[in-house]
């Protein structure tokens, strides 16, 4: 399941996605501008995880195993959620993220934003 986040194409393994909610608009805001979807995820052992929110168009893509390359170790950090890179000839198509880590990162980002808003 491919989606865009901050101008970068990311993807979740399809087996991690339980279902996708219908577009949800924020109250009082034009749905065409603010509609977001919730990706309902599951962990590798089948446990349901909190939903991942995205404002992006979603696309299901199938790629060959040979197109999936591990992310070079030197590119990893505690905050980096990318685990592999999907390639085609000489370009990167999109990057696969770890669902749980990406979810944690999104929740930390949301909490930080709320803290900043409160501080202001």
């Amino acid at each position, binding site marked *: 399941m491919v989606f865009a986040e901050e101008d970068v194409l990311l993807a979740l393994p399809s087996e991690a996605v339980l279902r996708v909610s219908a577009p949800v608009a924020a109250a009082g805001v034009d749905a065409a501008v603010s509609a977001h979807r919730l990706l309902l995820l599951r962990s590798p052992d089948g446990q349901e995880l909190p939903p991942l929110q995205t404002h992006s168009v979603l696309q299901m893509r199938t790629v060959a195993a040979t197109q999936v390359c591990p992310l070079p170790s030197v590119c990893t*950090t505690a905050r980096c959620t990318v685990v592999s890179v999907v390639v085609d000839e000489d370009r990167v198509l999109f990057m696969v993220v770890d669902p749980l880590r990406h979810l944690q990162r999104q929740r930390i980002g949301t909490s930080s934003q709320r803290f900043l808003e409160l501080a202001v």
Partner: protein
Amino acid sequence: MHIVPFRIGNVWLAIDAGKVDHILGKREWVQVPSAPTQWPGVLVWRGRAVAVLDLGLLLGMSPLSPSVSRHRTLIASALGSLLAIAVDEIREAQAVADSLLRPVHVTQHRYAAFELELDGQVMSLLDPVALVRDALAAASSPASQPGSSAVAAH
């Protein structure tokens, strides 16, 4: 030994030719979200994702950006890892006597233990092994593991 001189901005450096896998032209690369600042993204070469090294950043220059390319790309290898270095110019490999290598004195770069003078130009001999070793150590440190409270500093 044989060395390959290359330039980033107005800084000349050299690398052991034995560490150079390939020399390419301008290559498109993509930014990896939350990657280390000196390893900001990847490019594709021979079906593999190769880490992009922002050597200019280590030299005090502005960070690389996917929208701004340098003319050449040097693919090097160290400790089993491939790295792509975007550079402005590359010269032909040259044989230099080991006696011409001296400890760094004129040039001061973190990842260069030696320097040499070629055609009146003093240049550091880049040590890609030290670069990759540091990066791998940072990536595998407890602070860099998911769930740890500290963010790895680079």
